[in-house]
């Protein structure tokens, strides 16, 4: 098996700092370049460094076309010695962090700016869907063209049949995240959500209803990856990277997605960190639909496969609850700014464990688990990743 001959190693003194959010807008006339530039400017201002000090850049964006990270260097006047372009949607931030961390460890870069950002024009979601992937073009869009709603509706339907999850269970996740979002100034959703309103919302693709879906919007999220020494020299509050995993196209023989790639690697994630699920103080899951949040509770080891519904029923998922989860509201309430959606949880976790929270600060949090999930290439999400970070807490 892959990996046994060359096991993963932990990280040495990799610092993650400067959580930046460019406030989301439902629609904006600005292109992706504008959003990404604004995030980078804020990174340099907050860190009190010059743009030329960024000698590493990692970019994730769906709407940068025809450009990639390469074009951005000239566009923005950067001269990095390390450059990455990560087209992994919701897994982008975890993967960007993993790679940037190794670059910093190896001395290939000193300060890496990791940024995810996307435009959202009036018709851009439809255009993005139409050219998303070859398998989607050939084998998923010709079937009702429901986009990710259709794909997740099938996964959700199957999960509900198999494990007895109810709409109320998914509603509890969405309602708790909305409560968290109301404390987060950048959240797109600003009104409370009741379970009744969740349950009676209009159908989108049964069993998916309106509040199971994210709101596409424009925005950007970013953070810096550097060495602990440089972070200290710059006087930046920072978290330390402890452990990460990444997996693509896991369990291809599962007839329908019932688990993500985390299930393949989760033991190693905790083993390298020397931690167990009980040690996680705050969890930021990838939440384009609540079913995948429930699967992450299982696949990340907080409960066994099939126990997700019970886990949700027996926990309070709000920031002041027994299991703080998606403390800025997640994409379900903060909005999904394209690839920035994959960054939302990472940036929020960084704020929480470094005592810089813009949302309600969870008290005593030092260890965060952030997980990412992305890219419905055909019938299931292919990319998954997770990272454990530790900070000095609030």
């Amino acid at each position, binding site marked *: 098996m892959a990996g046994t001959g060359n096991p993963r190693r932990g990280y040495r003194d990799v610092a993650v700092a400067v959580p930046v959010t460019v406030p989301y807008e439902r629609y904006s006339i600005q292109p992706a370049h504008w959003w990404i530039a604004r995030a980078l400017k804020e990174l340099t201002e907050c860190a009190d460094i010059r743009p030329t000090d960024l000698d590493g850049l990692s970019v994730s964006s769906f709407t940068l076309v025809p450009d990639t990270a390469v074009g951005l260097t000239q566009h923005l006047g950067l001269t990095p010695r390390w450059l990455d372009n990560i087209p992994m949607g919701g897994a982008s931030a975890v993967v960007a962090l993993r790679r940037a961390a190794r670059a910093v460890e190896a001395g290939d870069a000193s300060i890496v700016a990791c940024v995810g950002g996307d435009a959202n024009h009036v018709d851009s979601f439809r255009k993005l869907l*139409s050219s998303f992937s070859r398998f989607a*073009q050939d*084998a998923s869009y010709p*079937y009702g063209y429901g986009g990710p709603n259709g794909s997740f*509706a099938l996964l959700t339907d*199957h999960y509900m049949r198999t494990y007895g999850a109810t709409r109320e269970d998914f509603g509890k996740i969405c309602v708790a995240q909305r409560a968290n979002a109301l404390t987060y100034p950048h959240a797109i959703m600003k009104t409370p959500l009741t379970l009744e309103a969740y349950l009676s919302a209009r159908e989108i693709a049964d*069993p998916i209803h309106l509040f199971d879906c994210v709101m596409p919007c424009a925005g950007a999220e970013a953070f810096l990856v550097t060495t602990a020494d440089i972070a200290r020299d710059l006087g930046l509050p920072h978290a330390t990277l402890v452990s990460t995993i990444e997996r693509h196209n896991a369990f291809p023989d599962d007839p*329908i997605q019932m688990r993500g790639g985390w299930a393949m690697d989760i033991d190693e994630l905790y083993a390298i960190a020397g931690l167990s699920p009980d040690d996680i103080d705050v969890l930021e899951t990838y939440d384009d639909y609540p079913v995948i949040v429930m699967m992450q509770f299982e696949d990340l080891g907080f409960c066994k496969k099939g126990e997700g519904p019970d886990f949700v029923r027996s926990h309070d998922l709000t920031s002041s609850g027994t299991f703080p989860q998606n403390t800025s509201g997640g994409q379900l309430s903060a909005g999904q700014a394209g690839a920035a959606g994959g960054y939302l949880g990472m940036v929020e976790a960084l704020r929480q464990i470094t005592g810089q929270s813009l949302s309600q600060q969870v008290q005593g949090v030092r260890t965060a688990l952030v997980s990412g999930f992305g890219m419905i290439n*055909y*019938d299931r999400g292919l990319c998954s990743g997770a990272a454990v970070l530790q900070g000095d807490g609030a």
Partner: protein
Amino acid sequence: MTEPIARPPKKDPQKVTRPPELPPVQRSRAALAMSAAAARGVFALQRCAACGEIAYPPRDACPKCLSQQLAFEPVADGGEVIAETIIRTSTDLYFRQRTPWRIGTVRLDCGPSVVAHLHGDVTAPSRVRMVSKLDKSGNAVLMALPERETENMADDPELRELTASPKFRRVLLTDGRGAVGQAVAAALSKAGASIVFVGIAEPWKPFPGQEQLAAIPNVQIMELDLTDTISVRELSGEIGGKTDIIVNTADHVRPGGLLAQGNLVTARDSFDVNVFGLQRLAQAFGPGMRARGADGTNSAAAFVDILPVYALANTPDFGFYSASAAARHSLLQCLRAELRPGGVRVMSIFTGPVEDDWRQHVPPPKVSPGKIAEAVIAALNGGIEESFVGDVAKDIAARFLDNPKVLERELGL
């Protein structure tokens, strides 16, 4: 249980005709090979010649062994629905007009899981029978049907999008003088067509079967001469706006190759009926049909041409006739692309020789007009783009698929 479709009301000329949007058109080249199989009514998926894996969606390498020897082959059509959803909102214009639209995940007995359209009589979970059919964009899509026939099964709205069912549709059959035209007219009437307009050239000339033809329910005899542009134009002016299906039964058959003396006139006659007749018909009726491809229960649906299988390769004893068939085949390919934006299907019914005055010297087996009529109905009900009727047509098609150059020599012996 599928609700039987109701007879459509008379069209309100004040109301706007629904524009014929298409489902997503773009496909990879590998996926087009699946469409080619579906065009002949075959449920085929890629099988790896190296390891036997069945792969879906269509791709360029085996996901088990990376071999590139993937060929589309007929596979077991059984499966089980393991998840379903009803799409209620879509950014795609075609589906927006047709929601709610039900789809599901089907675990195929042959291996892969597929996303498929679900027939209304399919429950989840349940066993299903899979079909691969061309959607309005001309591309193969998978649909899960109930394992056993159900009542009014063909009336399912999602299935009806994949067929050109004659039920409640108005058909123009171009030549009722011959046995083939008469058999097809009877079959269309029986299949539920609301009107079968039957074209007769020079109707004052009597012909065998005339009375029986006129007695078929819903048949209306119309004057139509495919060699006369004005005649075709006049008929399209009269019924063009309510012609949902055309079945071209005209066929001018004469023996003879290229070296036979004095056959220029018969050659010209053959082309005038078989090629230019098709052209006149397409030009008079095609644009109207293309605009009415989504016009409700009796939308324009199909242009069917019955042509000799020697369109694929020349049989020298009917050399010029074969040439006219080849031209006809080529023009049907053209027309297929031209009518596709309207979601109107072009169906080729390739036949072997029928028993008639001009083919008395041709040895059996021959195709009966009844078999051709059955094939026309099957093509319409099944949404099949290319059908081969009778043993000779099937044999020629198999040889053509195997090696067209060998077939040329076989026919030239």
